[in-house]
């Protein structure tokens, strides 16, 4: 294995871990459900893609890296669908997005409770 391949795979896995961490911090820090979904979905998508891509790079040109690439495609397709399903279900349930310049009563109604 060449040093370049090794270095790139380490960099990709490290960057992926960073984005996963950011996603987790975002879930805690952001104000409401919908913005938390942003953090959970986007950062994690790139995080998982980078980690798996880095592992495929480490593995080299083998059957195992082909499997990892299939997993990347699956994640890229399934994650946004999952985020959309969550957001849609929340809205159907009656949860309203928090808006800072809204009518002022938004903050108190975060628990939702039907339309």
């Amino acid at each position, binding site marked *: 294995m060449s040093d370049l391949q090794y270095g790139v795979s380490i960099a990709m896995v490290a960057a992926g871990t960073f984005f996963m961490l950011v996603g987790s911090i975002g879930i805690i820090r952001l104000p409401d459900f919908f913005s938390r979904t942003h953090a959970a979905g*986007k*950062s994690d998508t790139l995080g998982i893609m980078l980690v798996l891509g880095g592992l495929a790079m480490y593995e080299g040109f083998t059957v195992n890296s*082909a499997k990892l690439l299939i997993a990347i495609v699956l994640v890229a397709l399934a994650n946004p669908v999952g985020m959309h399903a969550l*957001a849609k279900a929340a809205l159907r349930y009656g949860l309203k997005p928090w808006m800072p310049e809204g009518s002022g009563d938004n903050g108190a109604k975060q628990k939702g409770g039907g339309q």
Partner: protein
Amino acid sequence: MARSKITIEGAGEFTVRKRKWSGVAVQGLVLMLFWCILSGRYDAFHISIGALSVLIVSLLNARINRLQFFAKDVPEWERIQYGRLLKYIPWLTWQIIVASLQVAYVVLHPRIPVSPLVLKFRADLPNAGASVVLGNSITLTPGTLTIEVRDSEFLVHVLTPASSQSLVDGTMPTKVAKLFRKSASNVVSGVHVVTSTEEL
């Protein structure tokens, strides 16, 4: 036999399309490739088991794939232009990286500079497949999240107002429409910011 109706208990009525054996064959080849990658063994025994499984799955799928599940779910989906898709995927990947960096900036900023808003717009897309591609692309790109798609009306949650730019000026929806049509002008219309929660 070209277009008949079928009623499935508990699910409703569906249109049945004409069977296309070329589609079944392509699907079988893709499944066989998938089997070979996952199994990693290429002796006669494993290949023949794989071929048998692929045959059974293809025949079962050939029946399901004839059902038309949505009003706009026309075989036009097959007319996706693969050349443009090859250019679209790297562009989308770059957008995903930008999106994640932006979310990282917002999340790690001490004051969390977000001001979420909800955007409503119409996008005239040729078929259901295009709506799926656009919905997923919106979710993956900077600061935007598809909440709901009704017919051709999209409801999008936006994290920071600046990030909705490529939607409002129609860059991305037009790119998606071009995946399916020869040419497309701006397909976005009726952009509308939802300011009060009562509107939802």
